[in-house]
């Protein structure tokens, strides 16, 4: 098995909503999109706040912040900026680029709903992926011809960088500065793009807003877990029945995605800032539940390693990749992530790494962005859930299984 590629066609478990009409391949061009989802509609800010609260819509980027709270905090007016964060800079995640590529109009519909509700015409869609960029640009052309709208929607292709997906780093990048997070914590809703109040959210969040407006509250909540109704996109990787991007009703047991017989080794939930867990029984694809269980879904990556490969080698490879992704602005992050990567490399060769626990603790809360914290979560949980593997490596200097490269390390353009 080699590194996983983005599958040509995403899959839906149950009824496809975001992926309606595209689970057999292809792209929903404007006419098909309108047939599937109906005409573009709008809501006032007040109604949108109340409807997103009723359906408990959470941001689909990483932080899972309630959309209604974010919307309610927004000022309105022509200077407000709406930013669609489609940067998805984690290589294991493909759901946003896939969504923007196969259903670009859903994302644009959602962005226009938010822009109209906030009384602005300024919309920026930031992407890292060339195919998503091309599809969105084509979608905007289709609209110019068939369905002109007053909003000015700009699609921007941004540089590839892990931390650049962080919204404040993204805003810096859009303003032409280095795409790194600023040292002071500011909220985009106060001072965002070009200093203007900015509503920024992940690409899937905007598509979910479009679905909500098209289906109505009752239709939207017709499937899924009552604590986070509807569907969610996930990227499932590794030794699983259906790898790739999937749309599932929330509340689906993770084991249904991993392996129905329930036998499996450590599973990664939440991607490269996520956590490894040895036993997934009882876990369901619902953000509030997973957060309570200590394995936040983050951007929706779930991976299961094949039994024939060396799990520790996968962790070591991602650890050094994470160290290389430190933007190098903050000392504890730069030095700490590199030291931790070296510790994992030592453990892989069966050597001791006595300082690793202290080093992991030294990453928490000590950077301008969540990269050191996320790295500590990834490595710390891997070591905690792979005790058997660690023992074998310590005793024999290795496990004899090959490094398969199941967890992709670049793939940003794949």
């Amino acid at each position, binding site marked *: 098995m080699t590194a996983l590629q983005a599958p040509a066609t995403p899959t839906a478990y149950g009824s496809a909503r975001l992926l309606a009409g595209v689970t057999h391949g292809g792209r929903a061009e404007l006419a098909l999109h309108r047939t599937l989802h109906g005409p573009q509609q709008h809501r006032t800010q007040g109604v949108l706040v109340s409807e997103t609260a009723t359906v408990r819509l959470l941001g689909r980027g990483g932080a899972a912040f309630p959309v209604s709270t974010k919307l309610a905090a927004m000022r309105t007016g022509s200077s407000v900026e709406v930013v669609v964060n489609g940067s998805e800079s984690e290589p294991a995640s493909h759901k946003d680029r896939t969504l923007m590529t196969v259903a670009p109009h859903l994302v644009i519909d959602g962005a226009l709903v938010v822009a109209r509700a906030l009384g602005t015409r300024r919309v920026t869609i930031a992407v890292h992926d060339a195919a998503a960029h091309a599809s969105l640009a084509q979608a905007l052309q289709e609209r110019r011809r068939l369905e002109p709208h007053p909003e000015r929607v700009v699609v921007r292709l941004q540089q590839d960088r892990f931390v650049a997906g962080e919204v404040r780093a993204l805003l810096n990048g859009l303003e032409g500065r280095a795409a790194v997070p600023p*040292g002071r914590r500011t909220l985009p809703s106060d001072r965002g793009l070009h200093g203007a109040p900015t509503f920024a959210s992940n690409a899937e969040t905007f598509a979910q807003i479009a679905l909500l407006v098209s289906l109505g509250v009752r239709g939207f909540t017709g499937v899924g877990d009552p604590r986070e109704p509807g569907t969610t996109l996930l990227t499932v990787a590794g030794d699983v029945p259906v790898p790739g991007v999937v749309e599932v009703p929330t509340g689906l047991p993770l084991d249904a995605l991993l392996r129905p017989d329930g036998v499996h080794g450590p599973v990664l939930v939440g991607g490269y800032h996520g956590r490894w867990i040895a036993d997934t029984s009882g876990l369901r694809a619902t953000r509030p539940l997973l957060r309570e269980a200590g394995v936040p879904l983050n951007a929706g990556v779930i991976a299961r390693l094949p039994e024939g490969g060396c799990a520790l080698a996968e962790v070591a490879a991602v650890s050094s990749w994470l160290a290389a992704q430190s933007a190098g*602005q*903050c*000392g*504890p*992050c730069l*030095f700490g992530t590199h030291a931790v990567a070296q510790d994992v490399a030592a453990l892989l060769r069966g050597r001791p790494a006595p300082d690793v626990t202290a080093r992991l603790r030294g990453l928490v809360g*000590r*950077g*301008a962005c969540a990269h050191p914290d996320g790295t500590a979560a990834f490595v710390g949980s891997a070591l905690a859930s792979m005790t058997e593997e660690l023992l074998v490596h310590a005793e024999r200097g290795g496990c004899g299984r090959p490094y398969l490269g199941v967890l992709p390390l670049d793939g940003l353009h794949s």
Partner: protein
Amino acid sequence: MRIEVDWTRCDGHGMCALLLPENIGSDAGGYPVLHDRTVPRETMRHARRAVATCPALALRLERE
């Protein structure tokens, strides 16, 4: 008030750990370790001095 480090500025000279030991320790690289962010009134003078002395202008006091 609360003491905050701008990690993008801090050079790890460790001055702050000497001037505000009530809140700040130091790791092996000289970078600050904040064991407590809250600065009580009694040590506010130490905190202000640390903020003013930090050569990288990386420390600030924020309202809680």
